């Protein structure tokens, strides 16, 4: 591909321009001014559009059209088959905000997401810290930790549900023998604990990969300096490694929140189905329950609009924080 078809900086552009003598005269008449353009830009708009098209199409089909659908359904009550539709204004939203079930679900989601986020980070951090100190079989150690990530959420969910099933599950029997009255069918906390543990177990590997990389990226010179100053491994980890990995940790906090909020659907569906009595019914699972199982499309659409607002808020927070650069330059 010739250079003038690719992304070019202003300098390169200037260098290639004389090679197009035929277009110069005509081009100078129609070509818009380049003043004020960023240093790196496309000369030909159709190329830029062509390169952007796949991404834009994906956005169109997986974001804009669904968003439009959700918005158009959030303000109506509708027969599931689409036969009748009544505009109800903000009714779907006011009903949600005044419903104790929705409030409970929101509080539960917050609790679940925060606990899941912290637990995942701490466990992944410990494992990553330990990685540095494992001398033999490091590959096996890493492989074992990464395994859960390769298991589909639905499958791991079914396994968790079975292992801890109070009537037939072997691990539940063990808990019973140890004297715990374990029963996720009747004790909301047990159900929530089970879902949280399953969610953390599934996501630890994700955080682990990033943390191992971040810890490895800490310059040896700094670590050696700290060691010469007499800092022991734990102290070096807390005062040198952790602060230097802060950007990664911040990124992981955001990713864990997104995971907890939106991606634990498969685990909840297989482990508890949101029960008992809605005690593990997170906001995302509720959208599915109300929309796809109970066919209350209006309410479900209103809920997804609220979730979308939360997602937008998170993206905004993330960008602002990234702009401010949680970073320590060496």
């Amino acid at each position, binding site marked *: 591909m010739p250079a003038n078809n690719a992304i070019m900086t202003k300098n390169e552009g200037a260098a290639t321009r004389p090679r197009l003598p035929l277009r110069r005269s005509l081009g100078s008449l129609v070509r818009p001014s380049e003043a004020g353009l960023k240093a790196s830009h496309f000369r030909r708009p159709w190329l830029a559009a062509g390169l952007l098209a796949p991404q834009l199409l994906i956005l169109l089909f997986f974001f804009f059209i669904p968003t439009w659908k959700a918005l158009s359904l959030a303000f109506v*009550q*509708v*027969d*599931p*088959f*689409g*036969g*009748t539709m*009544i505009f109800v204004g903000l009714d779907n939203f006011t009903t949600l905000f005044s419903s104790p*079930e929705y409030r409970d679900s929101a509080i539960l989601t917050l609790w679940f997401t925060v606990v899941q986020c912290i637990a995942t980070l701490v466990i992944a951090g410990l494992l990553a810290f330990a990685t540095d100190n494992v001398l033999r079989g490091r590959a096996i150690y890493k492989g074992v930790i990464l395994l859960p990530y390769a298991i589909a959420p639905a499958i791991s969910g*079914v396994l968790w*549900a*079975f292992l801890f*099933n*109070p*009537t*037939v*599950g072997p691990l539940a029997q063990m808990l019973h023998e140890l004297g715990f009255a374990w029963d*996720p*069918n*009747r*004790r*909301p906390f047990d159900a929530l604990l089970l879902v949280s543990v399953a969610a953390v177990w599934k996501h630890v590997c994700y955080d682990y990969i990033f943390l191992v990389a971040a810890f490895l990226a800490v310059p040896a010179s700094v670590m050696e300096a700290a060691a010469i100053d007499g800092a022991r491994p734990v102290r070096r980890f807390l005062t040198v490694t952790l602060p230097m990995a802060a950007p990664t940790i911040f990124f992981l906090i955001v990713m864990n929140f997104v995971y907890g909020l939106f991606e634990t659907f498969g685990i909840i569906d*297989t*482990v*508890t*189905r949101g*029960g*008992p*009595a*809605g*005690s593990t019914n997170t906001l995302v699972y509720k959208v599915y*329950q109300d929309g*796809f*199982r*109970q*066919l*209350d499309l209006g309410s479900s659409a209103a809920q997804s609009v609220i979730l979308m607002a939360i997602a937008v808020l998170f993206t905004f927070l993330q960008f602002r924080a990234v702009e401010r650069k949680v970073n320590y330059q060496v």
Partner: protein
Amino acid sequence: MASTYVKSITGLLAAGALLMGATAATAADRVKIEWWYAISGKLGDTVQQLISDFNKSQDKYEVVGTFKGNYEETMAAMVAAYRVNQQPAILQSAERGFMTMLNSGAIIPVDQLMAKQGYKTDWNDFIKPVAGFYIVNGKPAALPFNSSTPILWYNADAFKAAGFDAPSDTWQGLEKQLYALKEKKITDCSMALPGDFQWSLIENYSAINNYPFATKANGYAGLDTEFVYNKTGVVGQVARLKKWVDDGVLKIAGQGVAPISLFTSGTCATIINSTASHSGVEADAKFKWSAAVMPHEEGADVRNGTIGGASLWAVKGKSEEVQAGVAAFFNFVAQPATQEWWSKATGYVPVTNAAYQKMKAEGYFKDHPTREIALEQLSRGEPTDNSRGFRFGNHNQSTAILIEEIQAVWTGKKTPQEALDSSVKRGNEILRQYEKLHAGK
């Protein structure tokens, strides 16, 4: 276990190969009829057998059956497909979705379809409980297909060991027996809670004891019906179940385990489950089992239970030749011989008198007495407004709410009265929403 899978897979492959060989010449010319169904396991195998029998019986149409998940999932798939004009030609929909489908505007009433395609079907031959539910203004809107009712399954060995011949016919008597089973440590658990307990232990309980579940004859007399089950014996029933759960008499299977497997494995001595469990229980239970009609309250005015299961709906928006194929398939399904075969293979009740009488004449029920229990339970007493059945719009939604509220009783968060009050209140909101959307239908 693994070997049965292998066997059934090779069996399927062989059947498929035979079928392909037999129809290879005409497969391309056949009109494809898509059917989405919602029953799985052994029942699903029987559905595929039914389809293959139909396809072999003629060479114009080819029914293609797809399992779309349970009843709610199949309904959701149908709704999603209908909105983008990708719907199947035939949908199997549960009795709970009857009103929703009836008023959906997405169906062709089955009598119109059959008349238009030139079939003379006798709509007066359905057995009474089936007709009482599916016939609207003298005509069926859908073809009754798999009809069931919950019955009490029990481990006869366990009952004998505890000194009982059979389960008591009242809840009070059954309670004593279940507690005796536990105290004598005969089985780990006395009863398993079925996955669809709201259908058996709440709705059928209410009908059998002749309690009103909702006003307007449980929804038969109008969309302005309101739930009233928080003011009837249902409250006592939930309190009883809660006590059983707390005392370890009634076990909740929970996720990852099918409640019926707690019965067939011998863990639990009883379960109140659909008569359609027959094929599964017959195959899996390695002990002497039997079944009985569901118990009633002492001194109750005992009535019939209500019908469960599903019917087949002809879906709108298909070409004339597909409609003709749907009618041909429906006609095949409605034949007494098919009905009889289906009932025997599954445990669902025969839905027409013709099939029922035929099975009776053969002495089938003498050899298989538990197969007639569902019919007996469905025919007890003269049906009343309380026992005929339930016709609620968006019944899936109010059911989900009822289950959630009763779970709050299991967890101890709410008393039975609080939970049912809340369930009725939330359920009535669903009914009002449905009434608003379907005013004048």
